């Protein structure tokens, strides 16, 4: 009787934790359904299609500015290509800034640093992740923007470089933590074998440990990329939010996520503008989801290859 009670209690707990695990999937699904439902009228509703059909979103329009994001206008213009370009530009700068720094730091703390240095550095770098993005954004807006402007001699104070570097600060701890874990997880025997063969510490790190940890490191980079694409507050504050259609990094940018954040609060519910903002949200969702899925698949493939070869 008593063991029966314990057993059923165990069953109940097990059911509960199973539920909490599956609730994540349910949540993901519901979010997607809701955002997708609000975005769908861009494809289905005749009214929304007339004002903001897919051709207007993605194809050049007639007039002096073929790619124009001017949703509040007598003739609203919804070209989302400048926003795509903005997100891509800022993300690229962030990645180019963050990944070398993060990987360098991870290689140092996992392979070269004495224990006390590692114990000091690792928590401090990871603390960067704990800074609220609005604080990073504020810092970028007030302090960093002027420094970046002077350092690169850029005429625009708020620009893609400034926003990208600030975004990089948010990406570094993510890439660092995962890369450090991946490097540390490489079996000790690899290093011992390499050193026994007469390789130097640097040769061991760069030619043996780094390649062995490559799947994890790539996953770290892809996750950092995903974070950079979706991050909103930093870009909203530091980028200048001008929907310019150019690859020039010294110009201000308006990203997809910042556009949703800036405009959704004021938009007339049910208007074409509203649905387009949800479409942007859906695209961001699908994009980061696909990126994560791809990273997962790629890492698994690479892992099998490396393990198979080893």
């Amino acid at each position, binding site marked *: 009787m008593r063991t029966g009670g314990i057993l059923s209690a165990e069953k109940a707990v097990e059911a509960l934790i199973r539920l909490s695990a599956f609730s994540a999937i349910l949540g993901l699904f519901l979010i997607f359904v809701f955002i997708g439902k609000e975005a769908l009228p861009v494809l289905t509703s005749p009214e929304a299609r007339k004002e903001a059909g897919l051709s207007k979103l993605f194809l050049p329009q007639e007039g002096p500015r073929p790619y*124009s994001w001017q949703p509040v206008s007598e003739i609203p213009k919804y070209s989302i290509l400048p926003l795509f370009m903005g997100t891509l530009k800022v993300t690229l700068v962030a990645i180019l800034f963050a990944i070398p720094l993060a990987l360098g730091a991870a290689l140092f703390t996992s392979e070269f640093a004495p224990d006390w240095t590692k114990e000091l550095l690792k928590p401090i770098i990871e603390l960067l992740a704990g800074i609220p993005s609005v604080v990073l954004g504020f810092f970028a807006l007030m302090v960093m923007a002027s420094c970046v402007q002077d350092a690169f001699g850029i*005429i625009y104070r708020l620009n893609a470089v400034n926003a990208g570097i600030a975004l990089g600060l948010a990406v570094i701890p993510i890439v660092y933590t995962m890369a450090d874990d991946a490097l540390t997880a490489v079996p000790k025997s690899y290093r011992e074998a390499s050193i026994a063969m007469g390789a130097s510490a640097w040769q061991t790190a760069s030619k043996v440990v780094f390649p062995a940890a490559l799947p994890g490191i790539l996953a770290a980079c892809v996750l950092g990329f995903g974070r950079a694409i979706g991050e909103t507050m930093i870009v909203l504050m530091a980028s200048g939010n001008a929907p310019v259609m150019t690859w020039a990094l010294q110009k201000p940018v308006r990203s997809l996520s910042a556009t949703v954040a*800036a405009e959704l609060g004021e938009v007339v519910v049910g208007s074409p503008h509203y649905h387009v903002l949800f479409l942007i949200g859906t695209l961001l969702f699908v994009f980061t989801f696909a990126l994560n899925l791809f990273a997962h698949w790629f890492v698994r493939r690479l892992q099998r290859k490396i393990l198979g070869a080893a």
Partner: protein
Amino acid sequence: MKTLALILAASLASAAGKTVTIKGSDTMVILGQRWAEDYMKSHPGTVIQVTGGGSGTGIAALINGSTDIAEASRPMKAEEKASVKRKQGKDVSEIPVAQDGVALYVHKANPLKKITLAQAKRIYAGELTQWSELGIKLSQIIVYGRENNSGTYAYFKEHVLGNQDFAPEVLSLPGTAAVINAISKDKNAIGYGGIAYGKGIRAVPVGNDEKSPALEPTMKNVLDGSYPISRALYFYTAGKPEGEMKRFIDWVLGPEGQRICGQVGYYPLKKPSKP
């Protein structure tokens, strides 16, 4: 103890009976809060809750019936009025409550003495891009504006740009304070915003055209209508205001309410109008 409980109960009861909610324009939120504070001081038992969020947010709340008064720094659109009629079954009352001017700001070191509406239009439409064209020894004009959810954006677009689109290069920032801060750090900058005070910036006198005199956005110039870019700030209610709401609005339009307009940096109406 018993009396305390009685007082609490009484104040709760009266509060429940007389709560007025106000929601809307970020430009007007400080003004609304000052009105609410002073009114509640002289009318104990009435609770007035003021929140911001933007003119559009306030109007959306009026449409949904989740606020009594919507504050807006732009006139309500016909489709929005129709939505209120459809959802609430009442016609919208439009009550101008204060005047505001939109100023054009430059960095304090910029010697620009005058700007005409036509020049401002060409700058914001992206046709005039160099300070040298205005006779100023600076390089490219860095143009700051507000996000497209702002009443000031809508007003500027209508009155200065004649509803033409802003150039894509216009940097958009949330709030007049952000615009002022950005200009104070950027010697090539120009920006528009509500009339405010800030370090490191200067409001440029605005002229209707080349011949007309350029005027500073002062109280006198806004009130007599000579300053070229000034606007009315509004309260909107669903149906005619009644009861406590009507008493509050009458007070706002009266001498005490209008005096507060001046204290927080806006301008009173020329003559108080009755709703």
